[in-house]
């Protein structure tokens, strides 16, 4: 009785902390959602006007004047294709490094070194390459660039996850008659699925938010969202309503992504259930 009360107090404190953290994140976003429905006069009015006739003008701007639906699709395609390929190549390499310590740590470090150099230094040679390969203004240049930039991160994240799988698990499977590939596919991958998803989502987000390469390697029709948002920042001022509307648009896939993450983070995916 006493114990359950104590445990519940812990739970209340947990909720309280989480609510505080959530509010810190949520309040600015709610304000942005409000701004997306206001004109510039109301957006900046202090004291704030709480009741006003909402306008869809900002959404009209981003869907008609600037085709954000196209940029959204560009971003989605580039980010997901690059992260999918990175996930496949990365998980193989990470397994190799985690299990066999292939080339550790020199190979590991040298992979990461591509990430350590500021992208600004690499942008001009990469532009030259893209032009030589006739890949400028096409999603492929971006996909290749993102793949090679974010693969090291993917590998590093996954190494950690592969290392935390007890090796007996694989041994047991092999004693049961699985081949190495079967072990990898049937035993290791399911256990490491949360890690794969985290790495995939992480990679997706890096691609989704990347600005500099997207600016240099895309043209008018292949723009990605960050570049499109930047275009709303004009010499006459920031079109804050349109920026807010685009933010609301961007937040929607988060809900989908989080759904995927949560589905995969369910606890019965741990190895206890596989035995």
């Amino acid at each position, binding site marked *: 009785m006493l114990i359950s009360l104590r445990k519940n107090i812990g739970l209340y404190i947990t909720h309280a902390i989480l609510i505080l953290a959530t509010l810190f994140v949520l309040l600015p976003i709610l304000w942005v959602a409000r701004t997306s429905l206001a004109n*510039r006069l109301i957006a*900046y009015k*202090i004291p704030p006007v709480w009741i006003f006739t909402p306008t869809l003008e900002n959404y009209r701007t981003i869907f008609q004047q600037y085709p954000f639906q196209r940029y959204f699709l560009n971003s989605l395609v580039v980010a997901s294709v690059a992260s*999918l390929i990175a996930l496949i190549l990365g998980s193989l390499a990470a397994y190799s490094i985690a299990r066999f310590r292939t080339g550790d740590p020199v190979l590991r470090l040298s992979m990461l070194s591509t990430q350590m150099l500021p992208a600004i230094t690499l942008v001009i040679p990469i532009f030259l390459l893209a*032009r030589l390969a006739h890949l400028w203004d096409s999603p492929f240049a971006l996909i290749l660039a993102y793949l090679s930039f974010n693969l090291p991160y993917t590998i590093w994240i996954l190494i950690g996850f592969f290392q935390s799988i007890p090796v007996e698990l694989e041994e047991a499977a092999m004693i049961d008659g699985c081949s190495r590939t079967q072990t990898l596919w049937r035993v290791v991958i399911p256990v490491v699925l949360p890690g794969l998803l985290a790495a995939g989502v992480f990679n997706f987000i890096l691609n989704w938010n990347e600005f500099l390469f997207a600016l240099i390697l895309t043209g*008018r029709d292949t723009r990605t969202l960050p570049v499109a948002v*930047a*275009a709303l920042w004009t010499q*006459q001022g920031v079109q804050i309503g349109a920026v807010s509307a685009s933010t609301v648009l961007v937040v929607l896939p988060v809900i989908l992504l989080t759904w995927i993450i949560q589905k*995969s983070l369910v606890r019965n995916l741990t190895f206890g259930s596989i035995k």
Partner: protein
Amino acid sequence: MKKRILFTIFGILIVLSLLLSSCQPTTTQPPAEEPTTEEPVAEGKPFEGVTINIMMEGVPDTEFVQELLPQFEEQTGMKVNIEVLNYAMMHEKLVPQLTAPEGGGSYDVIVVDNYWVGEFIYADWLMELDDRLANSETISLDDYLPSMVNMVGVLGDKAYMVPFYNYAMALIYCNVPEVEGKVGEIPNSIPEYVELIKSLTDADAGFYGASMMGLRPDPITMEWLNYLYSSGGLIYDEDWNVIVNNENGVEALTQYVDAMKNAASSGAPAYGFDETFTEVAQGKAFGFITFNWMLPQLNDPEMSQVVDMCTVTSVPGGKGLLGGWGWAIPKSSHSPDAAWAFIEWAESFDVAKARALAGGAPTRIDVFEDSDVLAAYPYYKEVEQIVGEAITFPIMSRSPQVVEVLGRVLSEAVIGSKSPQEALDEAAAELAGLVD
């Protein structure tokens, strides 16, 4: 259960990669770059099938060009792709493109800010336009205000650009209720102006005499140069000696710091153009030094609550900063002839007038003085004078670096980590090394 999740995810991603392949037809370049060599099609459509790419900045005039564009595409058969970008990103995007070899870039027409003129021309990235101008029926540089031509037209004795629009800076002030009865004549010198805006400031009530922008590097530099020029100072003299730290310069900076501390919001050291506009539009400040064409926006009830209260006039002291953009054809252009045809159209009197009537920022004298334009915007009389008398930022290959240096030391003076004299001495030492 586990498998199903995996399959769902892979399914989603596969669909996405299919989407990618279905995207290709629209995203690859239309195969229309080469036909420039084709025989012109007879019935008045000389550029049938030609596509040109243009990079422009997001300003009112760009929008008006885009609106008028179908008319040009109809006339010539040309397809014009205009890519609109924000100012700061343009330079990053243009530079790699311009370093491409002749005919190897992606843009056929670009617009060039006056800061970049020296850099682009000394780097030999722009085509000379003298011959084309000589043969043109619609454009002559004589039609333009000389101040514009000297800035974004010719350099030395060669023409590289055609002026597109101006962004001469001016004082815009609004007779909001807070200042009623407190403002007589707008003063004609910087010290008097600073006195006035200080007297109008009531920080406790959240009202300021001026909305000022201290953001590095261009906002603060651009704003302060109005103080400098109107105080009789210059960055370099005629022989490229640095004189920014002479007594006029120090006086201008002392006044500027005083205004920033006592007549503007405490947040002003981080304000850019957007914040100052918003503050004035919300009626929280008497006025600001900004682009002359900001006035129509202050009269837009969707953005502003000081509609019909504001006036544009020259910077107190009379000499403001002149800025402007010019059309240019990069050497890396695929289709220079089509590019020139586009510039000729965009700068023809009729199109320039239509742009001005829509609220653009003219550069042609005949447009400034056109009776329809003046009827719609009576204050263009004043603007023509402001543009004519304003002083240009020095044109040199390292202009952007000059802006950076000035921006840094000015910001240090504003927050008090350096005195005006120290700040300008430091700048002078660095600026001397940047001369070509």
